């Protein structure tokens, strides 16, 4: 029930992000989520694609350095405190959240967050035990 995320290295220079998004769009890679973490010199572009293998291949073929990482897609309820409650569950188990970002739109009426944590397996277990929905690739319409 993990989702494959592709992380690409991008040097901070004018037009570099556009070059990479051009590669993805020219190859009809459909994006479900996108996030950029950056430093002064470079950034990490993280994407969840409908076809992650294809995304990885077209980027590598174009000479972009990238790597695949398993992440969890967690359903977050819209009521206040929903996110806070989920983070509390992980904190109680000493699971660190390295980063998180949201998936575009609602799927089946639910909002989803992408989480990358210190212990993926344990995180999935405790979230499910606490009644929090975890989406698999199929639920998100990706493969």
């Amino acid at each position, binding site marked *: 029930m993990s989702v494959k*995320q592709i992380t690409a*290295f*991008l*040097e901070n220079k004018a037009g570099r992000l556009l070059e990479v998004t051009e590669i993805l769009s020219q190859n009809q890679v459909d994006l479900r989520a996108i996030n950029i973490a950056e430093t002064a010199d470079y950034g990490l572009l993280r994407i969840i694609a409908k076809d992650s293998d294809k995304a990885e291949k077209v980027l590598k073929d174009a000479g*972009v*350095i990238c*790597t695949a990482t398993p992440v969890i897609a967690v359903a977050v309820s819209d009521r206040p405190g929903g996110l806070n409650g989920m983070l509390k569950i992980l904190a109680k188990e000493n699971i660190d959240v390295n980063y998180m970002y949201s998936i575009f739109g609602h799927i089946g009426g639910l909002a989803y967050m992408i989480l990358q944590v210190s212990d993926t397996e344990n995180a999935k277990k405790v979230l499910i035990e606490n009644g929090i929905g975890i989406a698999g690739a199929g639920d998100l319409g990706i493969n």
Partner: protein
Amino acid sequence: MEKYYQKDMECASREEMVALQNKRLVEQVKHVWENVPYYRKKMEEKGVTPEDIKGIEDLHKLPFLTKDDLREAYPYGLLAKPLEECVRIQSTSGTTGKRVVAFYTQHDVDLWEECCARAIVAAGGTKEDVCQVAYGYGLFTGGPGLNGGSHKVGCLTLPMSSGNTDRQLQFMTDLGATILCCTPSYAEYLAESIHERGLRDKIKLKAGIFGAEAWSEEMRRDIENQLGIKAYDIYGLTETSGPGVSFECSEQTGMHINEDHFIAEIIDPDTLKVLPEGSQGELVFTSITKEAFPLLRYRTKDITVLSREKCSCGRTLVKMHKPMGRSDDMLIVKGVNVFPSQIEAVLLENGYPANYQIIVDRVNHSDTIEVLVEMTPEIFSDSLGKITEMEKNLVAALKAMLGIYAKVRLVDPKSIARSEGKAVRVIDKRKI
């Protein structure tokens, strides 16, 4: 108990050595003047005759020779003996232009091999030893030099040449090699193979003599630990003979120069003035015993420091520090000498590719240095924390090597500018 191959020379008093050098230099200048029109012309242009050279005090009056001279005079222009008295050539693996070819009489070969024998004995070699020579044989001087030295010492010599690791390890274990001679990178590779194949208990190595490329102190300790040996550095260049121009003793604090054959000077590569003892500068050699190819004041381009501090091994021969870099590449940043080779060594030691570019600039009247490193799949990770940690470690390692802060910038693969297929390693914006 320290052993010497030629104790009278290796432990001669300074007075004895200077007297010998004076005598040999005077004879050598005369020999060159009479037999090498190319150098004679250079002397005439400088207004120097053999009569002006009465001893090493007058050495500074002689003109320099550089690699360009060797290329210009290729192949016979610097030959000082008739070809029928020569028995051998060796050649450098030049990457550009003409090769450099050096000639040897039998006497030259004998003296060269004696220099290598001194290195082997300094590394603890005796006729009881089995010496595995895994330097390349052929035009390259590494194999022939150590091979000859090993014969002179009386070791059982295994003329393996380089490569074919399976065969190297088979002979090393079956014949019980005790001394290994090769490049440090090949020694490291062999050490890893020995470790992987679980052969550590089957090898009898006690010493290694490694040269012909730059290597760090860290690499030395690594090879020593992996093989359970003592690793000795050796230095030389084809132009003056080959390996054995200088060699390390048990103290491992620099290489003793065979001063009875080579007079060493340190010069400022810009002003070409001779620098006082203990200064860092370009190493210049004068061969005082070579017959066929006697180079006077040959600029090695290697930057080093000489030391006459008393050595615990008992040798009185001057010691040279492992070359810190090449004079052609030397950059002065914040008053500190910086060599691209030092930066390259740090990158390789820290798992980075050798694909880099150094940008030197002056911001607010102060020099800055930035090292661009191309990202690779091997060092890339999804964690920003890991990447920044790696960068921090690299900055710390560069500071330890250079003594000044250098900024590190990770860049896209293949983004470092190349001209004619070769990467441009240094951009000095202070000069643009």
